[in-house]
């Protein structure tokens, strides 16, 4: 039996990269998972369901849009019957040096990476409050802690997630709902693949554990924070970065 058997989970930005690894891990631990992405990925959901023997269903959801989030989450909670775990993972980058950064690039990153966390958390809060239990895991970034030239928007959004994580942890604690964040370091995904090789090599050389992280490294930490084993942990920011922030 997996440590999440019977749990109902929602993962945003779940069609690829870290989000897909998280959805796969939660499902492999026995959770039914609603995977959210910008378009419906029925084949992916069917494949995960078949391979892992749980219910995985795909939903299209623009997580930055209030009304869409309300409607889609209502549907998901009706479909699954409840929700135990929310993983706010959806994120985009629109990198650029500040002097050249467009308003749209700043706003889009804040909307998708930060506003979405507010909207999705609010959409599950009532159900979790009523149950007197729940797990919310937000995916921040090491760049929320360190800063990164060219990522004023991304770093601000990810740092905002840390503030929201701590506030929500305080707000929901009396109802048995824990809220934590993970700050991934350099993880090999499509997002980081966009970087040039020299930058990647520079990073890898700085990582104490000597390798770039895998999406599964992050997923394992999420599964722990989403499990009953982590019931006494809330308001924390867990680095999954090979020691980069040590």
């Amino acid at each position, binding site marked *: 039996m997996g440590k999440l058997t019977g749990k109902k989970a929602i993962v945003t930005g779940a069609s690829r990269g870290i989000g897909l690894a998280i959805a796969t891990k939660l499902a492999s631990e026995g959770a039914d998972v609603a995977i959210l992405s910008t378009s419906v990925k029925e084949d992916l959901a069917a494949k995960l369901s078949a391979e892992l023997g749980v219910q995985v269903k795909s939903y299209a959801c623009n997580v930055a849009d209030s009304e869409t989030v309300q409607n889609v989450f209502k549907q998901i909670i009706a479909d699954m019957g409840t929700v135990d775990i929310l993983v706010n993972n959806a994120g985009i980058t629109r990198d650029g040096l500040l002097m050249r950064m467009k308003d749209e690039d700043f706003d889009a990153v804040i909307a998708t990476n930060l506003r979405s966390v507010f909207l999705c958390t609010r959409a599950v809060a*009532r159900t979790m409050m009523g149950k007197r239990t729940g797990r919310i895991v937000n995916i921040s970034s090491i760049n929320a802690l360190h800063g990164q030239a060219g990522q004023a928007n991304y770093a601000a959004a990810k740092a905002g997630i840390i503030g929201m994580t701590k506030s929500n942890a305080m707000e929901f604690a009396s*109802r048995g709902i824990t809220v934590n964040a993970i700050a991934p370091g350099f993880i090999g995904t499509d997002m980081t693949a966009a970087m040039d090789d020299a930058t990647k090599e520079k990073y890898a050389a700085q990582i104490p554990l000597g390798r770039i992280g895998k999406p599964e490294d992050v997923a394992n930490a999420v599964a722990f924070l989403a499990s009953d084993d982590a019931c006494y942990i809330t308001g924390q920011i867990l680095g999954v970065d090979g020691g980069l922030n040590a």
Partner: protein
Amino acid sequence: MNEEIFKKVTAVIVDKLGVKAEDVKPESEFGNDLGADSLDRVELVMALEDEFEVEILDSDAEKFAKVADVVAFIEAKKA
């Protein structure tokens, strides 16, 4: 006071605050008598909105000290 509304409000309070129906009286105060904290109040207001299909602004909800206040508010909204 509208008895029917009072009964429905009582049912919502019993459900959300986990108190006994006989302990819910018109003069019961949410904080002192019914043990509601700020989150309980929010949950209660949202449940009342659903039950009676009315919108309750935070500025209205802040004025709910006792059960009779809620019943009077709903009565006025439904009138």
